[in-house]
């Protein structure tokens, strides 16, 4: 697969005003068994894309492909720079001896040679990030001692310090407390204003309806476009299969009673 990473460094890459372009992407983990096929979409800088689909529907596979980590890929992916990835909080170790500040600083590791201290600029930036995610007072707290929502914010903070033009977030709002959810929502608005592109995997159709674009996956691309156009009962039924309960509201589907957990 051709993978075009234009705009070598993310710091300079944003002014180029290029988003994410995917053409005919297929691939998976074993030869002959695609986990995802025929995905084609374009997201502009400053757009938030809600990625919907059942468990095993290809959301994670798409992220792996965009990160360049999928073993088998066909098709084309254009990115303005290396994407940052924000996992679900339970993917990070709770018993690892790191503070909130330590975790945010990991966002600067890739640009720090092993024999150097982390640059002053990055250390200041990490403090600013903690401020931004509302955890300045928890800088020295152990990561494992934070609440689930706070841990999610710290992992987003790590991606913020990476300063990537594209962010891939895996269910960032599932199971977080109200304060954290509000803070994450506000951060999304700021990142959108900074002209970054966000792909957010979610089970919450109502939430995706408030974003700029929606991508529906079910092993293949079911639909992509503006929420008003995509979130029809038919499309959602095709995306989620039989698990779907659609609540009608104002002429379009606004909620899905899908809880795979």
């Amino acid at each position, binding site marked *: 697969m051709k993978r075009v990473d234009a705009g070598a460094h993310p710091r300079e890459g944003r002014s180029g005003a290029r988003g994410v372009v995917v053409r005919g992407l297929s691939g998976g983990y074993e030869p002959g068994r695609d986990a995802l096929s025929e995905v084609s979409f374009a997201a502009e800088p400053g757009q938030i894309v809600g990625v919907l689909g059942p468990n095993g529907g290809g959301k994670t596979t798409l992220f792996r492909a965009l*990160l*360049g*980590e999928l073993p088998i890929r066909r098709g084309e992916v254009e990115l303005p720079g*290396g*994407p*940052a*990835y*924000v*996992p679900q909080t339970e*993917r*990070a*170790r709770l018993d*690892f*001896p*790191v*503070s909130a500040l*330590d*975790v945010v600083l*990991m*966002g600067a*590791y*890739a640009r*720090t040679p*092993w*024999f150097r201290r982390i640059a002053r600029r990055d250390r200041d930036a990490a403090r600013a990030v903690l401020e931004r995610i509302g955890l300045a007072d928890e800088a020295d707290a*152990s990561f494992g001692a934070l609440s689930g929502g706070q841990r999610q914010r710290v*992992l987003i903070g*790590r991606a913020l310090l*990476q300063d990537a033009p594209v962010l891939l977030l895996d269910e960032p709002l599932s199971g977080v407390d109200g304060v954290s959810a509000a803070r994450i929502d506000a951060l999304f608005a700021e990142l959108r204003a900074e002209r970054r592109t966000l792909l957010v995997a979610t089970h919450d159709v109502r939430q995706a309806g408030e974003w700029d674009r929606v991508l529906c996956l079910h092993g293949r691309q079911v639909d992509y476009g503006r929420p008003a156009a995509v979130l029809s009962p038919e499309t959602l039924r095709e995306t989620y299969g039989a698990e779907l309960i659609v609540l009608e509201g104002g002429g379009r589907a606004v909620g899905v009673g899908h809880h795979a957990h």
Partner: protein
Amino acid sequence: MLSWLTEPFASPIVQRALVELLILSLACGPLGVWVLLYRDAYAAESMSHGMLPGLVVAALAGAPLLLGAVAGVLVAATAIALVARDQRLGADVGVAICVSTLFGLGGMLALSPASPPRLQELLFGDLLGIGGGDVAVAGALAGGVALALLAGHRSLALVGFDRGSAPSLGARPLRWELALLAVLAVTTVAAVQGLGNLLLVALVLAPATAALSLARRLAAALALSVALSALAGTAGLLLSFHLEVAAGASVAACAVAMALLALLVPAGRLSH
């Protein structure tokens, strides 16, 4: 009191043993912390036990112990890697089978009537029989280990903390997991002369266990582990001299006692 502390170290034999232990602390201390964080403790034990046939063959052939250790570790690692791939067994069972087989094979060779009576030395090391050349070799290996862990510090932290995100942050998980096992193998080879293949695991795992239960930050845990490992070495030699017990066993006992004491301290007590 002072002479109780200094008297043992008047002899050049004990001095060499102390230098050897302090050098090993530089490698074993930080390595143990990473091994525990990567949940590789079982691999550490397996590797050092599985190399016994290599040590015995070297002893029988009159070859340098170091050579036998290298060959033993390579054979053990290869056998474990091959057996662990068998889906029917699972990695743990595979490792257990390999290690028991190799350890048994080593014992059989060592206890045959033709063998010189050196099994004890292979199992428990010979701290007080260490020569200047042995110290130099251990120093070179331990220095390499410490440097490798320092160079890989940030990548190891990325992979250990959040394996799935590590590639996007600049570290390939498989590469660093294998690198840690390689460093573990080198440390095993470096420490076997002094501590033997049964006791060296104590100097890798026990101070690190104590350090991780006392410190809340990675850098603090690594530094504390080196300090505790050196302390266990020194205290072990003192005990061994005054109580007239085996040196390696005393060092291991001191390290394990420290780990037990540290586990009794409430979590994070010394972190601020």
